[in-house]
């Protein structure tokens, strides 16, 4: 039998049994669409988080005060000792290390911000001029914190766009004075909408020099130390050197946690990949159900077409040909279902993308390939048994309509 004739005959059969074919297509479509849509969701979440980390800037090493230890209790704690604060002098020491390009100390707090009669509470970040390139913030207007000594306490502030509009409705905020806590600052720049940090919106942020923030919150300790290495390779050397330098300064106590950005990213990547795989697994169940449905429907089809099988045998069709006919029909239906499922899945992604533009939904390539391969494979596997049953029918009994 020619291949085109085989496909044509199977297609005829599938098209004539419309209800049966629609049911099969529907089952397969739902299965494939579920895999595509759910893995897109997992993958979208993964890329969203990865994007958030990317916005922290590259080649980033983060120093966090305190030691996160999983194995036993730190000796310092037994002696009733608290970890030493991370201070500005630590930052200055780190800045001198080889391979370090920029250092941005970070102090974070919340304070009432006021201008004239208008007042609101806002997160306040104390840092240096280097925060701009390290963090990837973008300025809408004006300028960022001036470069210079970290210990210089200049009374200038860079504020988020929302804050500017709330405190100075209808007026340009640049050059005006605001009050943060009990201190006066001059607004020198407005932050753009770029640079979202997890849990913190640059539009709602006030950034002041680190010394000013320390004075404002009356605390010497830093929340974080952000270090940008010169190159990606330097990142790991900087990490080791930083631990050494701070240990030396803290009386030999390793009381900070130093993480590289990509380590953090890799952890989240693993978590979200696991999530995606879990979702794919759940969605695969519907694919398996679709496969079983294919088998059932094809079995019914075989028994309905017993007479036809008998006739084909009388006309000289071999077992192989009859198997091929029924199998091709099952495969055609599952391929059509897979394609329809792919389209529906991508359609769901598109609609979700329209509703939540922040969540970029597109299925991972492996999920698309897997869904389609599994769909076609289930057509083969679950179509084979009914097809073989048809091929093994006794022609005499089949012609008489008996099985």
């Amino acid at each position: 039998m020619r291949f085109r004739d085989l496909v044509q005959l199977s297609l005829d059969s599938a098209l004539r049994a419309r209800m049966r074919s629609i049911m099969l297509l529907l089952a397969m479509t739902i299965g494939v669409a579920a895999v595509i849509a759910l893995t897109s969701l997992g993958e979208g979440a993964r890329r969203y988080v990865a994007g958030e980390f990317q916005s922290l800037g590259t080649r980033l090493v983060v120093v966090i005060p305190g030691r996160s230890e999983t194995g036993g209790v730190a000796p310092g704690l037994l002696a009733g000792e608290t970890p030493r604060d991370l201070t500005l002098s630590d930052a200055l020491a780190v800045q001198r290390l080889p391979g370090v390009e920029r250092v941005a100390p970070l102090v974070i707090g919340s304070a009432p911000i006021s201008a004239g009669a208008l007042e609101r509470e806002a997160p306040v970040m104390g840092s240096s001029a280097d925060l701009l390139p390290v963090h990837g913030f973008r300025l809408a207007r004006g300028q960022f914190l001036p470069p210079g000594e970290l210990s210089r306490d200049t009374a200038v502030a860079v504020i988020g766009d929302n804050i500017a509009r709330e405190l100075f409705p209808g007026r340009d905020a640049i050059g005006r004075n605001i009050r943060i806590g009990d201190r006066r600052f001059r607004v020198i720049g407005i932050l753009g909408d770029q640079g979202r940090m997890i849990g913190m919106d640059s539009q709602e942020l006030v950034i002041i020099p680190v010394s000013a923030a320390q004075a404002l919150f009356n605390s010497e300790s830093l929340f974080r130390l952000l270090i940008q290495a010169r190159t990606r390779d330097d990142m790991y050397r900087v990490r080791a050197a930083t631990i050494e330098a701070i240990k030396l300064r803290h009386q030999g106590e390793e009381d900070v946690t130093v993480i590289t950005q990509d380590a953090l990213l890799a952890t989240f990547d693993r978590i979200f990949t696991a999530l995606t795989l879990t979702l794919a697994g759940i969605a695969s169940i519907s694919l398996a159900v679709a496969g079983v449905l294919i088998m059932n429907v094809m079995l019914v089809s075989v028994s309905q077409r017993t007479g036809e099988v008998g006739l084909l045998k009388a006309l000289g069709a071999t077992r192989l040909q009859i198997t091929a006919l029924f199998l091709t029909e099952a495969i055609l239906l599952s391929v059509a279902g897979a394609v329809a499922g792919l389209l529906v899945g991508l359609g769901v992604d598109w609609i979700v993308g329209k509703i939540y533009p922040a969540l970029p939904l597109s299925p991972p390539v492996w999920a698309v390939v897997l869904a389609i391969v599994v769909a076609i494979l289930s057509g083969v596997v679950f179509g084979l048994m009914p097809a073989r049953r048809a091929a093994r029918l006794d022609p005499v009994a089949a012609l008489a309509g008996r099985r």
Partner: protein
Amino acid sequence: MIELREICRRFQMGDQEVRALDSVTARIESGEYVSIMGPSGSGKSTLLNVLGLLDRPTSGTYLLDGRETTSLNDEELAHTRARKIGFIFQSFHLIPRLTAFENVELPLVLAGVEPQVRRPRVQELLESLSLEGRARHRPNELSGGQRQRVAIARAMVMQPAVLLADEPTGNLDHVSGAEVLAAIEGLNAKGITLLVVTHDAEVAGRARRHIRMRDGKVVEDINGHA
């Protein structure tokens, strides 16, 4: 040429053995026109199935054109059926979703014949059976006589040596039945071996050789018009 020697076909029905064919020996020359008659259960349909290679005898030998068939495997049987034997059934056995043309074309499709070769052949056959106007119709749009003529065309499309007809007029009125018989007798006149299984003495009477069966045995084999 068909040669049957001591053909037996036994079925197991529960704990009872049924002898559908009991030591049948016969020789049918090419171009013969044979009727097979007998009451229900006499084994005439089983004989036809064995002749058509749809059923295997339990014992005995069956030579088709001098070739032993009882030792052939399923694959070889299918190929022999395709090339040497045409079937006509009482209930036509047309595939309802295919047109008359496609039904006739089916054996050629299964044999892998190229479309440009098979189409003229189908067309020619339909014309010879006065069906050219019905080629695009599906079986449910055809009369009984037309359906059986489509089935004849399908049986003939591979140019077999033997045409086996199982009650070919059983589902037809008298006029359509006569048309169908005329069609297959015309083929016989061109040299095909024709075997007709029937209940109808009038139909059987048209054959030149008459085989009568009872209880799986040939009880009468008369050559010449009765």
